[in-house]
């Protein structure tokens, strides 16, 4: 177990190294010079040259990367071109709200997907099953930004049930503010979760031990919770873990739509303004998050399925 963990953790560094190269190069491939983005309409050739010199943008790209790497190793991810502040400070103060949003969305997603999938699996090929599947297929086709606006219009403007935009003042107020965006993300991700869970449940329902259980006279509720869900959830966990990247992607768009001060909206603004340092650091942080969740998914897999073992 320890060895396995150590091995997996050791792998994080090369992966992050790869991500750093991609993030570094991609943002520089986008047309548009950050010096011009900073100077805007007033960008004269002399001013551009001055700013480029200040930012080190006139160096060859490989030297810029080596600079970045050397500084990153010391924990310095550079200054934001726009705010003149540390990219790390600006990003880290926004991480909690994004994590909270992701977790909240995942929980709501599960709360929607698990009962629906169970119902659909138990009532396989019935009208209920078809209705649930049709509903979720429709949901997956709706763009999140549109869904977000419609939900806001219905649940925040028409019926003033939830707060709209921002992150509130902490505690319950924050949860109240995050409910709509979390619901939007959850609706976006739940079709995938629902379908994965439904098919794994059906597979389990067809296995012999369920028939045996039924023959032994176990109560359906016991059977459902202790045997069906327990075994059906195992493959589902990996689907959930694999989709964390998807979940984070959805969060970025939704943060922008709802004006939530998380890393997602920071990333979008920084891409638009070519604030290289922030884009690089946020990408690294998000990549780290995906790697971490994948690792935890594998651990959870072992917890749910005794056949999976990390010991040789």
């Amino acid at each position, binding site marked *: 177990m320890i060895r396995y963990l150590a091995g997996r953790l050791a792998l994080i560094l090369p992966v992050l190294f790869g991500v750093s190269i991609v993030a570094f190069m991609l943002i520089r491939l986008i047309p*548009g010079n950050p010096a*011009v983005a900073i100077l805007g309409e007033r960008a004269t050739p002399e001013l551009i040259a001055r700013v480029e010199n200040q930012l080190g943008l006139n160096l060859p790209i490989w030297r810029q990367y080596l600079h970045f790497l050397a500084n990153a190793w010391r924990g310095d991810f550079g200054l934001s071109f726009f705010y003149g502040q540390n990219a790390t400070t600006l990003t880290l103060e926004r991480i909690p709200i994004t994590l909270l949003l992701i977790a909240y969305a995942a929980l709501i997603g599960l709360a929607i997907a698990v009962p629906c999938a169970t119902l659909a699996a138990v009532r396989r090929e019935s009208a209920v099953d078809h209705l649930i599947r049709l509903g979720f297929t429709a949901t997956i086709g709706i763009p999140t930004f549109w869904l977000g606006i419609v939900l806001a219009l219905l649940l925040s403007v028409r019926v003033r049930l939830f707060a709209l935009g921002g992150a509130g003042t902490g505690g319950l107020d924050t949860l109240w503010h995050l409910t709509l965006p979390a619901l939007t993300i959850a609706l976006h991700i739940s079709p995938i979760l629902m379908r994965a869970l439904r098919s794994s449940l059906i597979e389990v329902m067809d296995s012999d031990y369920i028939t045996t259980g039924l023959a032994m006279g176990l109560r359906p509720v016991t059977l459902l919770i202790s045997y069906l869900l327990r075994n059906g959830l195992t493959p589902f966990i990996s689907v959930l873990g694999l989709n964390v990247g998807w979940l984070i992607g959805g969060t970025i768009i939704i943060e922008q739509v709802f004006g939530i*001060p998380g890393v997602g909206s920071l990333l979008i603004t920084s891409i638009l303004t070519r604030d290289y340092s922030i884009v690089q650091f946020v990408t690294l942080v998000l990549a780290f998050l995906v790697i971490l969740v994948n690792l935890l998914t594998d651990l959870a897999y072992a917890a749910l399925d005794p056949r999976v*073992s990390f010991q040789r």
Partner: protein
Amino acid sequence: MRIRVTALRVVSCFAAVMLVVPAAMMSPRPSAGAAAVTLTMVRNADMLTWDPYHTGDDPSIFTQMVAYDRLVKLAPSNKDVQPELATSWKMSPDGLTATFTLRQGVKFSDGSPLTADDVVFSLTRSIDQKSDWGFLFSPVKSVSKVDDKTIAIHMAEPFAPLLAALSTFAASIYSKAQFDKYGEQMAQHPLGTGAFTLESWQKGSQITLVKNQNYWQPGKPKIDRIIMRVVGDDNTRVLQLQSGQADLIDFVPPNQVQLVRGSGLKIYAVNGTAVLRYTLNETIKPLDEVNVRAALGHAIDRQAVAKNVFFGLAAVARSLLPETTLYYDPNADPLTYDLAKAKALLAKSSVPNGFNLTVQLPAGNQTYLDTATIWGNGLKQIGVTLKIDRLETTTLIQMRNAEHYTVFNAAWTNDTPDPDELLGVAMDFKSQHAAHTFYNNPEAQRLVAQARRELDPKKRQALYTMLQRIESRDAPQIYVVDVPRLYASSPNLVGFAPNSQGKYSFEDVSKR
């Protein structure tokens, strides 16, 4: 079994950490007392700096105008100035020295007194030609302290736009002691005499301003706290206003104005802030011919743009100057929609049967695209085929600055009520090749310089009328419409009256 238990613990710990830690880290901010009045404004972008020396973006300009005061402020007419930190001023007979008497008893928001030294220090930074806005004060040589109540501004030549330039954010007055303490970091730590002062700033998401307890105007401001949140999405800002979570929003999309009005909310259209115009590059043939440029200028249906693109909220432009600018003259032979005239002008050129023209627009800007489409329809009728190229914004600005464009479309934000800033760039070849047009007219240059020096308003009016007439005749830039800046608020907000410089005037705002 051991592994299972460990892993279960890991998973449950992770779930707990995911929810609890972020929630705990966002500790509740202290809430204001029950009687405190808070105004929530939602803007489309955050400000970037509190230092006027390095400011380029509108959100910074507008917010700085809340926390800092200036010697003079723009009158409600937008055409004159009124006393602010200066109570009176006097120009020397030779027009080379202006002396300002300072208001007494004014304090910074931290309680320290405003002194003549603070004023001299701030203005000396303003006139620094290396600063972003030094050009506004180019004839100013120095600023000096006369005594504790008086400062003097010394100029190399008579400079008529002085008071207008002093009303801009670029001439904001701030604390010298604060700058000595923080240096360039004053960009994060402002200290001014304005009605509100900075309490906290979460970059990119929220600014909280609180009432300046030492504000010099008795009984003002009437609100205790202003929260400025950033929401980039146009629809969300409108929805937040409709749901009552915002008192005030900026950048209302023109196509939603009717809807917002219909739901009982207030709309504010601030005119005189910008003129939408096409800048023509005269190094590209046949744009070097005056008949061609004028023909292009007569081929755009400005009425249709105002009505269809801006939903009737924009006014047809009749000068390169916004209509609230000093010496604006709508009757100086403006360019109007006249296809017969356009055809006749083109007939006199080297391309009587028309030609192909390219306009470069920023990608994603529907307003500019719709406007260009209307222009294209008019041009088609005089034989000119308009090709619309859409490019990423910063690439486009770079192309314009490198002067590798054909036709560039922009709206100029008006910083001063004086025409010198705009015409001084647009009509003077020495200034960025006349706004990158390569328009080179010695007569226009002479008039620009003369109008800058002329202190008699009547004579200045005549000079600027001549300049506007020349601009319309030679059409280095083709003006289209006066674009308003759009705000919306809840019906309970009283006294909100932003001016053409973008000053919100929060000191007069109250909530019912």
